[in-house]
């Protein structure tokens, strides 16, 4: 956030530019048992607005959140729809448990679109107030279709029952200013301001494919607007393609019973118990309230999992320089930091007093939310930048420009390795010296993305397109780039080294949207604790945990309060994988779901898993509809599997030599490093294929990774188009 106040004169100038292009009136009705019962459709090409009913089958099959998003998007797009086609949509939803204020982590929105990076649906979850306020305004989801012919804002007034598409020529595009302008435009009192939330992006999203969405919430104590990011998959790029400056919702009057649950008492009991658990346990467990997710950086470095120099290595002697204490000095702890009411885990961190050293806002002292672990690991460790200030500055500018810090970090690290390998030269990069550790070059490339010029724009196309460009224009070795380019399905990897965890290689490679860790994180269970030794064990984990984590996205929930704090007796009552499931918290969610919806048929965690399984398989089939979704698209770069180069091998030679002897059955003595590397590679790549076979079998898919007809019937997703797709692919294939 910029600390400057928006003047009254500025607000009037913004208002003067507004011209209503379309208007829709509706009667606001209370949410019942967690559902508004309608979704909102907005088309910015045709300037049409309407409401659609949510029927019982939609609720039963897709639950809400990501499920509703995918169903609405499925019905909106064709198999040849591209990210920039007018029919592509951005769909945003909360979920039936969204907006509970008594339980932590209940304010998430889930955004879905056809991704510019992958060409398939991407789902990205985000804090901030938008999703719950949208629901309390009367809509379980918002679909935005079309491409406007001028800059617009979509405004939803949930108290008045009014939706408008308005021309908005004067507002800023960069989110850190725009979000403040929106709050000033639509909120007067502190309570009104807290009732306003916007979704926006920035100029960087216009010139790259890695644009993020910023979801805002107003912080009444600090009297400013804060931003949370739906980072993955380039949804911000789609928003700016549609010429939408902001989606805005205003709803004043959130209360602990706004969802009108079946059983408020149970929600209060479970919630109060959980607040107490966080009060007692967080300070001695993961210190989320103090450090946010960046407490992970030290842990990852200690376990050789922190990506260093484009995932070559898992640790670095200088990593200490970007551990939590170096960020704590920027953090201010004078207000609760939850990104929705009642989130006492409060991982959002408020960094203040950051004086910018570069870029268009150079010299300004700004504030920024974060940094998250992924940002520190991606822009810091992965690019070899051991400088907390540079990481925070990049974090600020990424948010302001609407750039995903994860794709930015991974794409930058790839470009840096290419530069160090001589594939890129200063002539090609326009003078940018992209050596690992060059913070100034990293920041300049980011500013180039905002200006739409220079080599930064190439980096902003993402790793998959960079590989093509470097091969076609600069004669790079395609196999080498395939090996070191950390993307799968077109999406950049998030920030964990998976070389020693076969299960997590699958966790990334099999993730529906591409390699993001929100679907599965199995590294400790697999590589550190050796709790899932066989292929069947790993396949079971790659069934349970992705389904379990999917459930949060169906309900408008954050995953963190599930296992980033645990009951005191969790590790004594339960062992191994059962402890990793945190059964008491699973039971909390069963109770919450039943208390909200009144669905007495939901009795156990297995009932929740089944909800996810339907949506998860549906998303897999959605990938198939878009021309992906089969085995070859689950391939992963070798950098995520094992050492690509001699230097990587030699850095952990003892470990790899031992594996050659004990696992591969090869005596490494007398072999060259390259020979040893090749022997290890053959073994590890074969292991990955065996894992895929086991996971497909466990999930009820055929050997090409397509859900069987039997499976889709069992899950109740046997819609005619789904059946036709599977039949066509099954005949064509095996």
């Amino acid at each position: 956030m910029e600390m400057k106040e928006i003047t009254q004169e500025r607000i009037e100038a913004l208002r003067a530019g507004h011209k209503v292009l379309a208007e829709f009136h509706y009667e606001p009705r209370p949410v019942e048992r967690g559902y508004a019962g309608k979704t909102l459709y907005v088309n910015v090409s045709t300037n049409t607005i309407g409401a659609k009913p949510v029927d019982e089958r939609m609720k039963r099959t897709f639950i809400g959140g990501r499920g509703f998003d995918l169903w609405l998007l499925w019905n909106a797009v064709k198999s040849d729809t591209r990210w920039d086609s007018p029919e592509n949509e951005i769909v945003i939803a909360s979920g039936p448990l969204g907006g509970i204020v008594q339980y932590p982590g209940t304010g998430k929105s889930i955004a879905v679109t056809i991704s510019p990076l992958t060409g398939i649906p991407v789902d990205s979850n985000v804090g901030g107030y938008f999703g719950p306020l949208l629901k309390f305004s009367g809509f379980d989801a918002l679909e935005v279709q079309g491409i406007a012919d001028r800059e617009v804002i979509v405004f939803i007034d949930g108290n008045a029952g009014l939706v408008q598409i308005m021309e908005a020529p004067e507002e800023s595009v960069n989110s850190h200013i725009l979000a403040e302008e929106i709050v000033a435009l639509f909120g007067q009192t502190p309570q009104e301001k807290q009732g306003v939330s916007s979704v926006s992006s920035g100029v960087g999203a216009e010139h790259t494919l890695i644009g993020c969405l910023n979801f805002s919430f107003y912080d009444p104590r600090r009297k400013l607007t804060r931003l949370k990011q739906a980072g993955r998959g380039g949804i911000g790029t789609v928003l700016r393609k549609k010429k939408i400056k902001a989606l805005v919702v205003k709803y004043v009057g959130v209360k602990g019973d706004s969802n009108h649950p079946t059983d408020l008492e149970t929600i209060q009991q479970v919630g109060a118990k959980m607040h107490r658990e966080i009060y007692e346990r967080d300070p001695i467990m993961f210190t989320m309230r103090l450090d946010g997710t960046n407490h992970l950086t030290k842990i990852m470095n200690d376990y050789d999992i922190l990506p260093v120099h484009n995932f070559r290595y898992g640790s670095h002697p200088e990593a200490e320089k970007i551990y939590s204490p170096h960020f704590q000095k920027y953090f201010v702890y004078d207000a609760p930091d939850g990104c929705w009411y009642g989130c006492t885990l409060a991982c959002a961190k408020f960094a203040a007093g950051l004086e910018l050293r570069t870029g268009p806002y150079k010299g300004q002292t700004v504030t920024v939310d974060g940094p998250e672990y992924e940002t520190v690991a991606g822009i810091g460790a992965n690019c070899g930048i051991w400088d907390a200030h540079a990481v925070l500055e990049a974090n600020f500018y990424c948010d302001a420009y609407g750039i995903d810090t994860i794709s930015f970090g991974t794409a930058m690290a790839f470009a840096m390795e290419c530069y160090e390998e001589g594939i890129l030269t200063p002539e090609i990069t326009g003078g940018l010296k992209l050596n690992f550790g060059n913070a100034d070059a990293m920041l300049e490339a980011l500013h180039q993305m905002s200006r739409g010029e220079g080599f930064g724009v190439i980096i902003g196309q993402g790793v998959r397109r960079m590989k093509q460009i470097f091969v076609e224009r600069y004669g790079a070795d395609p196999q080498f780039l395939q090996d070191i380019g950390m993307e799968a399905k077109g999406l950049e990897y998030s920030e964990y080294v998976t070389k020693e965890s076969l299960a997590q290689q699958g966790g990334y490679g099999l993730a529906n949207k591409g390699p993001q860790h929100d679907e599965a994180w199995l590294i400790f269970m697999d590589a550190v604790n050796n709790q899932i030794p066989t292929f069947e064990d790993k396949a079971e984990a790659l069934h349970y945990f992705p389904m379990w984590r999917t459930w949060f996205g169906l309900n408008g929930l954050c995953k963190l309060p599930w296992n980033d704090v645990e009951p005191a007796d969790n590790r004594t009552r339960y062992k191994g994988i059962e402890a990793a499931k945190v059964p008491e918290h699973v039971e909390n969610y069963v109770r919450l779901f039943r208390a909200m919806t009144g669905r007495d048929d939901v009795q156990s965690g297995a009932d929740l898993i089944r909800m996810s399984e339907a949506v998860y398989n549906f998303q897999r089939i959605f990938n198939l509809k878009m021309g992906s979704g089969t085995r070859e698209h689950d391939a992963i770069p070798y950098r995520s599997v094992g050492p690509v180069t001699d230097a990587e091998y030699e850095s952990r030679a003892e470990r790899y030599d031992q594996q050659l002897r004990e696992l591969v059955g090869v005596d490494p003595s007398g072999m060259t490093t390259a020979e040893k590397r090749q022997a290890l590679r053959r073994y590890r790549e074969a292991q990955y294929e065996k894992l895929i076979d086991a996971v497909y079998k466990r999930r009820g898919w055929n050997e090409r990774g397509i859900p069987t007809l039997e499976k889709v019937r069992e899950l109740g997703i046997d819609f005619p188009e789904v059946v036709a797709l599977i039949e066509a692919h099954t005949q064509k294939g095996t």
Partner: protein
Amino acid sequence: MRKVLITHNELCVGCHLCEEVCSQAWFKEINPAKSAIRITELGNADWGMAVCNQCGECIAVCPTEALYRDKAGVVRIKKDLCVGCLSCVGFCPTRTMYYYAGYVEPFKCISCGLCAKECPAEALAAETLPD
């Protein structure tokens, strides 16, 4: 300056009259689950007396600024601002921020002293302490 309900556990006889006075005053019914002071039997004729000491730690965890300290130093809840998230209930060091299941907003002792006036054992006193 802080107006606080002082408890003398050693004098408490466990009659629970304070709970009745409190719930009657603020909820118009006699119901210990609606009292801002709670008396629990500890055994050996000892009684625990749980009531807010006005430390104010809850103020910092409230996301809506519904909790504040008034001129008398008493921590109070603005019900119109409170969304009922119960963060304050979980984060109260003395577990004396209460809620009644089904009512959205929590409640707490505001040192009104009504219970102290009625206490037959003189185990309670509303006093103003220096900061």
